[in-house]
């Protein structure tokens, strides 16, 4: 009777008792994106972008209303705490909210100014919410971001996530920050963090399927600037160029695009270079009581477009291009750095590096690091090499000019 007894006992317990944790798929509200606002009544307003599966997938024989139904539905609840607000949804929703497939959390600037600690705590504490959601900030109402439909990608939450990933990979100015990375940054030695911004460019908002029928949408979701958080609260913004500079310093640049002028004396940007690889090393250097930030960037790239009159087979021309790009990188990095210094926000991780390299010094400077940071000079070295010039050997302008001669 070796197998029968325990098997029978097990099965009988299991059958007699019933099942508690079971949730059928059609009892779930699959949330693709969440938004957190802070309203005038001093309450958290949490909005959910819920996917309607039958509108998207159109399974066999179950087409209900087909293309005219919107793929998502957005609704909001409010409460004194974030989880309290989420619980309020049970009054409205026929199904249980399911957050495991949540891709992005959009936080309104107002909520960010109050501080993101409650949000992070709620995410890390619950097993249902994933710590890998991307966090974004918006100056408009976060709920309106959720309501906006997107081109190509049916579920806007997924779309925002993918846009962020693509930008991260190809332009690297705005980093994708997920919840646990945010916690990591805020708990680092400097207690500062950066979050990308999302906004709706254009009016009116595209919120139903009718408007999606046109070939060109009046308004779109767009990534914007970079938000800087100090001690968990929104402190300021960095423009895209400045954000790129900060990204260089944080060694987060995978690939980006630099536009440079032909000569230092001409301001117009005529050349476009794709940076294929950039490695940055930043080191704090201490002389007595003075700290300097030593940064060294080694990058290489490909020439994409140039309107300068150049014969690229001459090494002199290449050197000239490289030096212009180098200058431009230096400008970008310096502008980013000084922007952070103006905000007195150390977002590049200098505090961690000082902590690691000079632990004793760190304990002294830690209390007013923010002010100290604002005064640390930047010693920047950039090396840029043009590895490939593409398929043409001369710029078209030069060729054109020669023909005319």
């Amino acid at each position, binding site marked *: 009777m070796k197998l029968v007894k325990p098997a029978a006992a097990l099965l009988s317990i299991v059958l007699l008792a019933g099942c508690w944790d079971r949730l*059928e*798929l059609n009892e779930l509200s699959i949330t693709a994106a969440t938004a957190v606002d802070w309203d005038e009544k001093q309450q958290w307003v949490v909005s959910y972008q819920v996917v309607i599966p039958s509108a*998207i997938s159109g*399974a*066999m024989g*179950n087409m209900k209303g087909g293309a005219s139904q919107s793929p998502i539905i957005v609704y909001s609840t409010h409460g004194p705490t974030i989880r309290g607000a989420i619980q309020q949804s049970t009054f409205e929703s026929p199904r249980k909210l399911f957050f495991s*497939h949540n891709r992005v959390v959009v936080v309104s600037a107002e909520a960010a100014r109050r501080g993101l600690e409650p949000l992070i705590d709620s995410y890390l504490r619950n097993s249902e919410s994933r710590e890998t959601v991307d966090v974004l900030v918006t100056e408009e109402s976060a709920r309106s971001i959720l309501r906006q439909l997107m081109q190509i990608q049916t579920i806007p939450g997924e779309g925002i996530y993918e846009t962020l990933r693509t930008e991260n990979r190809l332009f690297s100015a705005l980093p994708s920050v997920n919840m646990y990375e945010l916690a990591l940054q805020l708990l680092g030695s400097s207690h500062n963090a950066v979050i990308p911004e999302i906004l709706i460019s254009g009016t009116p908002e595209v919120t139903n399927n009718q408007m999606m029928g046109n070939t060109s949408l009046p308004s779109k979701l767009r990534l914007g600037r970079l938000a800087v958080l100090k001690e968990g609260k929104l402190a300021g913004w960095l423009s895209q160029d400045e954000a790129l500079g900060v990204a260089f310093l944080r060694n987060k640049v995978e690939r980006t695009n630099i536009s440079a002028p032909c000569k230092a004396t001409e301001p117009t940007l005529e050349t476009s270079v794709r940076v294929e690889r950039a490695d940055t090393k930043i080191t704090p250097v201490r002389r007595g009581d003075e700290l300097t930030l030593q940064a060294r960037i080694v990058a290489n790239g490909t020439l994409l477009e140039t309107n300068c009159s150049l014969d690229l087979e001459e090494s002199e021309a290449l050197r000239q291009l490289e030096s212009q790009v180098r200058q431009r990188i230096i400008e970008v990095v310096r502008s980013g750095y000084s922007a952070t210094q103006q905000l007195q926000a150390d977002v590049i991780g200098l505090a961690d590096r000082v902590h690691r390299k000079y632990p004793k010094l760190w304990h002294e400077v830690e209390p007013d690091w923010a002010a100290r940071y604002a005064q640390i000079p930047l010693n920047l070295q950039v090396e840029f090499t043009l590895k490939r010039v593409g398929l043409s050997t001369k710029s078209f302008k030069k060729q054109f000019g020669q023909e005319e001669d």
Partner: protein
Amino acid sequence: MRGLGIRLPFLKRRDHSGRRNGGGGNGGGRGPGGPSLSRQLQANLNAIRRELGDSSDLTIRLIRDDSGRVLAAVVYIDGIVIFDTINQMLLSPIMERVHELSSGRSSLSAADMRALLEAGTIQLGRVRETYDLSHLIEELLTGSTIILSDGSSVAFAAATRGGEKRSVDEPSSQTVARGPKEGFTEDVQTNISLIRRRIKSPLIRVENRLLGKHTKTVTSVVYMKGIAREEVVEEIRRRLSRIEVDSILESGYVEEFIQDEVWTPFPTIQNSERPDAIAAGILEGQVAIVVDGSPFVLLAPVTFVKFFQSSEDYYQRFDIATFLRVIRMVSFFISMLLPSLYIAITTFHQEMLPTPLLISLAAQREGVPFPALIEAMLMEVTFEVLREAGVRMPRIIGPAISIVGALVLGQAAVQAGLVSAAMIIVVSFTAIANFVIPALNMAIAARLIRFAMMLLAATLGLFGIMSGVMILLIHLVSLKSFGVPYMTPLAPLKISNLKDVLVRAPWWLMKTRPSVISTEDRVRQAPGLKPGPPKDRGERGS
């Protein structure tokens, strides 16, 4: 056998020393003696007729001498004898000799008759003497021809066993693309001959016994001395002799009586319809049990991994064999766990699904009335019904209906909104995966366990599945087949035996036999047999 109930008190009970055994190694199973034969022919014939209830296929041919006196009788049961043999080898010679001898005399005495018979008139290979009525009846019923002579209490039983038999044909189950296409038949002699034709070694031992009170089924134990373990052979002998039952009609009966563990869905004895598989098993140290009336020969002891090996693995190249073996293992798990995994993941752990898949599944589930477990059970039971029906249907319509039935039924169910399309895919893939397992008895285990797993999955999700898998694992690791742990060579781990488990090592690497099954003499190949072109001397660039 025992206690036929006939006591003829005026006959003395003879002891068994008078019996001679013909042939090598064949023992006849007999109970303690029954009544002896009388000296009078008529009395014997009457006794025989009475025993068999005057059955109409009992044929008695009286042999008279020229004067018409009945000298002897040839008795056989029509249909189970080879009629030609009786005529040519038995009746003709006897009649001739009788005619010769009695041409000079008026009558032949009993002694003459007996001398005639003993002198080799009967031109058959195996002739036995018997003094005993019950033994005689036994021989008669197994197809021998009995020659009784008047005035002598000795009867001769000549082996003329025959009757219609199926010819050696392709096995109906366990077919292969490459490999021998002979399959066992129902006749035990033919089967043993098929084995003997493959193993021409003097180490082969064949031990017969009769099982089944009424069926007296010949059961042969075949093994190789010195390669199979003595303890195992002894254990098998012991278990077989414990069987006391009315009938043994198929090897499955024997299997159920001698298996190690009753309460397990997993088979502990292997069976095969293919002589090459059985011969391979015997050569590795297993013991074969051939049962008359069944083309399925048993092999013991067996381990879990053997059920995933097909004979074809050894005839094709090792790379494809390895690949297919991995597929079989995976299919076993699929056929056992796929529906339960589907239920568990879609009702308890939806976060594991990638988002597009989740949305697609959710869309399919809209409007489906049943929870996932009921859906799964419905479809699984439907498929089992279809499968069983496919077995019984006449050959012509069978495949068509089962395919059409499956597809149409599934399709219609989805369109009616009864089940979701994903469930149909899951259930049909499970059924197909079940067919990949080469041994039917193992496939049946997977089929049964599947349902228990589904119940566990529906109540406790992946925790339930893990509990079920744990129970099975504990059970499998503690199971033994004739003293050999079932999960060898995985647990206990024997690395040298692993070369035939998940992969099929090339032949030139398999130098030793599996250590758990065979004895110490395990080398079966000379070393250094790796093939290759001959090493050229002095040729450059090669």
